[in-house]
């Protein structure tokens, strides 16, 4: 009876010991072997990644992966790659990547210098900036009028950081998720809720009475969204970027943009001409 146990233990130790080896392997080889691209994404960030009324896990970010990145991977690896979705949150997305649980974060993650110390980013696929959601007719008109006001923010966002630095006397309240922050705003516990403009537009579009709410203020931050991946894996990163560049160049990106953010989309949000130009200028020649 003793011996099989020893073998089991050896097997366990071997498996556990193997995990770092898997980590050392590059992502393309991992995807080639498993036939799956596993992305970390959101269930509650319309229209980038959310579960729609038909119970399908969809969104702009997920569409980009499915329609632009998967074809690029198929071409590179010469086989059909399947897409697998996993839930990630601001707190778990970097650990999920580094633990090899997901290969790519495709949601609403802002590319920042401090995040680049832990992960690598694709090129920017969406540009927004922080604004405020207020009750219609609120005296708050932007970051200039929030001194001494109670402001809700989503924890883990870059916006709270900026408010703390620029308006230290604003009373900042941070909630871990959007629904709690919106509830606090709806009940008057706070006078405004700050987040990326596009997220506020998504929230407003989904609110019971969208007309009761207004999005105010100039962008007081710059939030370029990128897809994150493990550091130092430039072959994988290149395939991701080629997928995105091809989509921008072929116009697929703008079709998808129209689908989600056009006048008939989930969250109407016209693409500014300068953002369009910026996206196109990220495409390097073949």
């Amino acid at each position, binding site marked *: 009876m003793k011996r099989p146990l020893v073998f089991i233990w050896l097997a366990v130790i071997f498996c556990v010991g193997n995990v770092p080896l898997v980590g050392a392997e590059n992502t393309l080889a991992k995807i080639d072997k498993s036939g799956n691209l596993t992305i970390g994404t959101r269930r509650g960030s319309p229209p980038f990644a959310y579960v729609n009324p038909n119970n399908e896990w969809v969104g702009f970010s997920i569409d980009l992966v499915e329609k632009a990145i998967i074809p690029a991977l198929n071409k590179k690896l010469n086989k059909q790659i399947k897409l697998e979705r996993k839930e990630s949150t601001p707190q778990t997305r*970097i650990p999920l990547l580094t*633990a090899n649980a997901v290969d790519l974060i495709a949601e609403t993650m802002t590319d920042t210098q401090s995040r680049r*110390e832990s992960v690598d980013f694709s090129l920017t696929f969406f540009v927004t900036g922080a604004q405020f959601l207020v009750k219609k007719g609120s005296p708050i008109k932007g970051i200039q009028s929030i001194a001494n006001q109670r402001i809700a923010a989503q924890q883990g966002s870059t916006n709270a950081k900026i408010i703390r630095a620029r308006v230290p006397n604003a009373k900042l309240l941070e909630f871990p*998720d959007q629904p*709690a922050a919106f509830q606090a705003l709806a009940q008057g*516990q706070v006078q405004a809720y700050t987040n990326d403009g596009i997220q506020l537009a998504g929230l407003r579009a989904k609110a019971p009475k969208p007309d009761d709410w207004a999005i105010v203020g100039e962008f007081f931050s710059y939030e370029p969204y990128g897809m994150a991946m493990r550091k130092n894996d430039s072959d994988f990163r290149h395939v991701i970027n080629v997928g995105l560049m091809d989509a921008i160049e072929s116009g697929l990106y703008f079709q998808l943009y129209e689908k989600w953010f056009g006048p008939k989309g989930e969250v109407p949000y016209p693409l500014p001409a300068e953002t369009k130009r910026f996206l196109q200028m990220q495409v390097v020649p073949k």
Partner: protein
Amino acid sequence: MNYQFNWSVLWSGQTGAWLLQGLLVTLEISILGWLLAVMLGLFSGALRTVPIAPMRWLAAAYVEFFRNVPLLVWMFFWYFGISPLLPQVLRDWLLEHGAEFSAGVCALGFYHGARFSEVIRAGIRSIPKTQFEAALSTGLTIAQAYRLIILPIALRLILPPVTNETLNLLKNSSVALTIGVAELTFQTRQIETYTAKAFEALAAGTVVYLALCLAIAAAMARIERRVAIPGMISRGRTGGG
């Protein structure tokens, strides 16, 4: 693992100060929540053993209602549910003076009060009826029997489960971050936001909770030994004495 650990994020810049602030808020909310929980627990736990049926039902209703609903729901209840019912003046005052913190204290206190109540009831019930009868036969009144015989023994008996509940309460205080209380777990998330160093931030939080809990457990074990009645409650280490 393809990850560069950088432990210095924990003491460079403001992170050290954040952790300290978080620790203080965790301690404040836990201590206030604990006091509320113990008061409610003692009161309702005692009520459940009295011979007046409606009072027993009332206490039982409190316990079952509060312990069978998740703490997270209670957090939202006290913050989002109660606040709109308050008069405007009181509401404004609360909002200026930490509405989330008081909601957190109430949620923790009422939830754990229900759990403390069961511990206290179990402690009183675990004393054999004969002990009570023996006390009465020596000429003590019922109140004296409770005060001099039953409660002193019961309170000693429940020390281990009380330690357990106290540790649970301390750790559950992290749920208050859902209503925006800037406690320890909140601050470790904050560090992650600013530095993108999730592992280091979580490790720091873990170490602080572990240290706090070990300190509480050690202090309670000391109290337990101090007040132990020789031969009454046998503890493995003291060999029944």
